[in-house]
């Protein structure tokens, strides 16, 4: 009898746990579907207050393209601005600083600069990049908890993948709603980059822009915007 009782209690307990797990998973799934459905739809008709903006910079041509875009965006709408670049990339943040100091006439326009571990260096094999990606994700999580941006602008480097994935997770968990904009590099004419493809396929980017018409035809959910350079 005693044994049977214990057995029944533990059965009830494990049943209870199972019910909780299933409920939580269902809730997450429902929320995930909601977020996926909500992504790509524009925000309320009139935004008045400025939005905190995370700008992910990449080496060389990527940064030049991003600066060209930033020159067009109204600074009083996208602030404070947080610039993130790979830890091995010293030039990009320098270019961002030059851009900030040259174009902001009013004082105190807040901008912050941060470095992040890179998930894959140019030329690194895809196999070893698994380990480095894990480190990059942990570091990215720490940065994202601190920043919690409302807008994310990125245009190519692999650095943006962990940041965008975390931003998406924040959306699912209800920590912070953000709009993710991805501009594929002008260097991509026929195929999306690995970063672009991931964000496109997983539906993480709210809007994915491409600079060549043939690329838009291949990826119908992307938006053709002409050349930025």
């Amino acid at each position, binding site marked *: 009898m005693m044994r049977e009782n214990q057995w029944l209690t533990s059965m009830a307990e494990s049943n209870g746990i199972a019910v909780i797990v299933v409920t939580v998973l269902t809730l997450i799934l429902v929320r995930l579907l909601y977020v996926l459905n909500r992504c790509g739809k524009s925000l309320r008709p009139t935004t008045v207050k400025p939005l905190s903006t995370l700008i992910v910079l990449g080496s060389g041509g990527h940064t030049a393209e991003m600066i060209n875009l930033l020159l067009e965006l109204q600074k009083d709408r996208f602030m404070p601005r947080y610039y993130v670049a790979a830890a091995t990339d010293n030039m990009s943040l320098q270019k961002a600083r030059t851009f900030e100091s040259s174009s902001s006439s009013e004082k105190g326009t807040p901008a912050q600069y941060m470095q992040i571990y890179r998930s894959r260096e140019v030329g690194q094999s895809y196999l070893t990049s698994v380990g480095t990606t894990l480190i990059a994700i942990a570091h990215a999580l720490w940065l994202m908890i601190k920043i919690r941006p409302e*807008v994310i602008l990125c245009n190519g480097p692999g650095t943006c993948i962990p940041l965008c994935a975390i931003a998406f997770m924040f959306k699912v968990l209800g920590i912070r709603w953000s*709009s993710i904009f991805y501009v594929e590099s*002008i260097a991509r004419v026929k195929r999306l980059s690995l970063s672009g493809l991931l964000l496109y396929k997983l539906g993480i980017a709210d809007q994915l822009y491409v600079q060549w018409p043939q690329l838009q035809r291949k990826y119908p959910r992307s938006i053709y915007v002409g050349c930025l350079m």
Partner: protein
Amino acid sequence: MEIADDSKNSKRVVFVTVGTTLFDALVRAVDTQEVRQELYAKGYTHLLIQIGRGSYIPARSTSDNGSVAVEYFTFSSSIAESLRSASLVISHAGSGSIFETLRLRKPLIVVVNEDLMDNHQEELAEELAERKHLFCAHPRTLHQTIASMNLDSLLPYPAGDAKPVSKLINKFLGFPED
């Protein structure tokens, strides 16, 4: 194309750039007798090579009759100056170098690096070559490209515009249109 006709000037510089890393195959290619002869035949007098971190060092030479003068450096903060002084640019396929050169309206030959793992750079060079903004070559075919190129066939590259993206982002976020 609005290219300054400086053929009357005695000095016509060809500037070669490998960008921020290295591209020995390009430096080696421009250092060959064939390429230097083709350049000289086209009226160029000086060859200035930015070799980056590469290990192949070209032979410096002064201009004698019948050959171009060769000079090189590793890195410089004034790449823009070298570009501006050039009559012809031979560049790696990085988008930074390509668009900087096109903006200066300089005739450009882009040499594709075949040793890169994910060789998407070729896409951009080939697309721009198809649109007649530049010539596209490989290290082994560079001398043929120089021999057969007709600079008058090049079209100026129209300046890029980030306004469409900016508008779409603003609209998406619900900011009012100006």
